[in-house]
């Protein structure tokens, strides 16, 4: 796992090594162990290395193939490199070192672009083919590893982070106002399409490869992986026992992610997913790990009981981290997080995650993490709602107890007011439902009275940004739950969760590996009948069932969910920095994006306790902090 950067002068001018060094220096945190720059004619390839596999000098990059035809700069890991290496060696390939990087080169030589289908891992790389005078560019299937490009008339640039591009081309530090609008409107940060937080810097799409021809100075991109539910069914489901298949895949996904020449730890939240990973490492692969967990004095957001239970069950070595124990001022921390993410922080919870990785980075270089299971196996309330809908459609009235149990469950994310009208009437009957809606609406009206009639955006900002189209992955499945999983995987959750995790972890030179995002598990999950994902009142049913032996009973029967909690609402009101927060939030009005009276109404409502507007106030705060670092003053008009 590393940082990459490079460029091509389209006018044929020789590449400037100092410019390349500025780029690699900007991503030095991604790879503090070594650096390398290669300038050849108008082509520049740079690299910062975080040594994890083959710690010797042989692993330095940019790396040349044994015959000198290819040069590669690579960020990520190909977990199945050992198997691929064996296969390639049998075909006569010669290897000079023990890295996965060299396997990519030889695989490309042997199989061309089809090599990508064989890779199991996370990656972003650029390979220069000297004989064809072209660059082969690729990014992993699920946007785990970042890759940004700038394609101007005179220049083509790429880097692991936009800051590397801006370090060489400072005039590109222009915010993308569409992203800003989206962020203010729904809180969805970047990564939902090719846009980055900067106007001209785009993301290279996940699951695509590109060929950049130096002869024509043009980039052609094509997909190498696409979700095809029917195909996945044939591959992973037909004629197999789903529970045994899932366990087999999960065991192998964890096994290949333990491959490293440094110590591997685990992030442990005490939830089902990270606990299953810790359990699998110990019970299946005999590895006792150090587990890193965020703990809080505030019991309402503490998961210590569950964490302790897993550590006892597996005999792991716990490393508790207390993000609330303030060492750095919040404002300073959010400035730092904004910098890491090359944009405003997606949520206050990133603060807790940031503090966890700060400590992880002092102790290990690699951690496993449970990201992906909620999206693939329906761990969120949205999926439960769809499952309820299906149950309500087919269930007899006698089964209604089960459905109501689910609705009422205090541990569930689901609230009765979130039920769709049709489902609400079906489950509860029209009178009960309408009574409920009336009550919810009354409460909502009282809450909203504080800012009713106030515009969310200034007229000038609304006029500048026309309504943006809703993004969609297209209809891939008739099953609503499978479609929900696909959207979560490709648009709503995984891309920006991976972005957040990469930003926070790589800032402290920590590589995060996610077994649930093994492409085989993803394909299996997309093909799996949704009755294995939600059964009765149990979400992620197959995870509980198949990985039973890895989980203590307490976690296996757990239904609550927390993520990385961060009590921003309290910080706003009670922290020593509350006046500074206020000053920053109100100065955001000068950007002419949100009217001052709207900001005022929301802030007053929050501080007086009449409403909890922490989400939107947080967006104003981090956005203002980030805009202060850009070439941007305010919206004209």
């Amino acid at each position, binding site marked *: 796992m590393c940082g990459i950067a490079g460029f091509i002068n389209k006018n044929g001018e020789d590449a400037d090594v100092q410019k390349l060094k500025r780029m690699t220096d900007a991503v030095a945190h991604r790879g503090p162990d070594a650096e390398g720059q290669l300038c050849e004619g108008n082509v520049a390839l740079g690299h910062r290395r975080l040594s994890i596999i083959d710690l010797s000098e042989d692993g330095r990059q940019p790396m040349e193939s044994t015959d000198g035809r290819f040069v590669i700069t690579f960020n990520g890991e190909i977990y199945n490199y050992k198997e691929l290496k064996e296969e390639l060696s049998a075909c006569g390939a010669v290897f000079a070192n023990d890295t996965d990087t060299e396997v990519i080169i030889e695989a490309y030589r042997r199989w061309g672009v089809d090599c990508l289908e064989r890779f199991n891992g996370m990656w972003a790389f650029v390979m220069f083919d000297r004989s064809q005078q072209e660059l082969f560019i690729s990014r992993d299937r699920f946007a785990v590893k970042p890759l940004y490009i700038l394609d101007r008339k005179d220049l083509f640039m790429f880097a692991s982070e936009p800051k590397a591009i801006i370090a060489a081309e400072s005039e590109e530090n222009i915010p993308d106002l569409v992203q800003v609008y989206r962020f203010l409107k729904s809180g969805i940060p970047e990564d939902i399409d090719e846009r980055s937080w900067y106007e001209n810097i785009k993301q290279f799409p996940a699951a695509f490869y590109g060929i950049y021809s130096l002869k024509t100075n043009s980039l052609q991109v094509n997909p190498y992986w696409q979700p095809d539910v029917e195909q996945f069914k044939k591959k992973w489901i037909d004629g197999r026992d789903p529970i045994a298949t899932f366990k087999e895949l999960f065991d192998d996904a964890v096994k290949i992610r333990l491959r490293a020449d440094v110590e591997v730890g685990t992030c442990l939240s005490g939830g089902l997913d990270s606990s299953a990973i810790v359990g699998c490492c110990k019970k299946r692969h005999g590895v006792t790990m150090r587990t890193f967990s965020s703990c809080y004095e505030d019991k309402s957001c503490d998961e210590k009981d569950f964490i302790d*239970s897993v550590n*006892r*069950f597996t005999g792991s070595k716990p490393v508790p981290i207390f993000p609330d124990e303030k060492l750095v001022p919040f404002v300073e921390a959010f400035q730092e997080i904004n910098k890491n993410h090359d944009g405003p922080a997606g949520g206050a919870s990133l603060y807790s995650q940031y503090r966890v990785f700060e400590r992880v980075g002092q102790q290990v270089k690699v951690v496993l993490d449970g990201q992906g299971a909620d999206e693939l196996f329906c761990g969120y309330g949205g999926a439960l709602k769809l499952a309820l809908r299906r149950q309500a459609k087919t269930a007899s009235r006698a089964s*209604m*107890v089960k459905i*109501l*149990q689910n609705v*009422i*469950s*205090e541990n569930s994310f689901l609230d009765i007011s979130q039920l*769709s*009208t*049709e*489902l609400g*009437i*079906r489950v*509860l*009957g*029209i*009178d*009960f*439902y*309408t009574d409920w*809606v*009336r009550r919810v*609406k009354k409460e909502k009206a009282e809450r909203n009275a504080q800012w009713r009639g106030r515009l969310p955006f200034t007229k000038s900002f609304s006029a500048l940004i026309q309504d943006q189209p809703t993004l969609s992955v297209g209809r891939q499945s008739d099953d609503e739950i499978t479609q929900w999983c696909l959207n979560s995987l490709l648009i709503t959750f995984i891309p920006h969760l991976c972005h957040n995790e990469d930003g926070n972890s790589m800032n402290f030179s920590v590589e995060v590996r996610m077994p649930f995002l093994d492409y085989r598990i993803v394909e299996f999950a997309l093909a799996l009948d949704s009755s294995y994902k939600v059964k009765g009142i149990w979400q992620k049913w197959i995870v509980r069932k198949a990985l039973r032996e890895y989980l*203590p*009973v*307490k976690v296996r*029967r757990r239904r609550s969910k927390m993520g990385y909690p961060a009590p921003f609402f309290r910080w706003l009101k009670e922290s020593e920095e509350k006046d500074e927060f206020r000053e920053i939030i109100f100065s955001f009005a000068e950007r002419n994006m949100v009217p001052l009276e709207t900001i005022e109404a929301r802030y007053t409502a929050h501080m007086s306790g009449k409403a909890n507007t922490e989400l939107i106030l947080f967006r104003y705060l981090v956005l203002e902090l980030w805009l202060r670092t850009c070439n941007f003053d305010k919206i004209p008009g």
Partner: protein
Amino acid sequence: MKLLICAQAQAEIVLKCLREFQQGNDITVVVPSDVGRVLKESEDIGSAELIRLKGKRFCDDSIAELEPLKNEQFDAAVMVSEGPAFVGFDKVIETIDGLRFNGTLIFYNSIGHREVIYVPNGVGRILERCAVRLLYGFCSMIRPIELFVERIYIQCAELLGL
């Protein structure tokens, strides 16, 4: 059949719905004013009676226009959704709450998919209401007991190292 179509949706979706339901049915369409303007000019409105509510959305203003309908008995109510999901009917439900219909609700979404729900009438409706309240109360009541049993079970499992 005497149908009441309530739509908080774009005119094209309402017209599509109208075309599908028009044959053999006596239809009354209730829509916000803006949508009503488009419907009025369309041939697809046919013999349907059009009622335009003031305001851009349902319940934005008074619903005095619906007063005459209070004496009528509808066989079914069709609710048209703006999008593919079956959401956003709250205001529509509120609007038709005082009207009389014979127990069938049809939810119709933007892609023409229908969900039919049979709502009991008269005594059946009162009984259902009571049953749901009882069941809801029962589930709320047993929830703490369920959690207590669960806690005991987990503590035993922990003691056994499971």
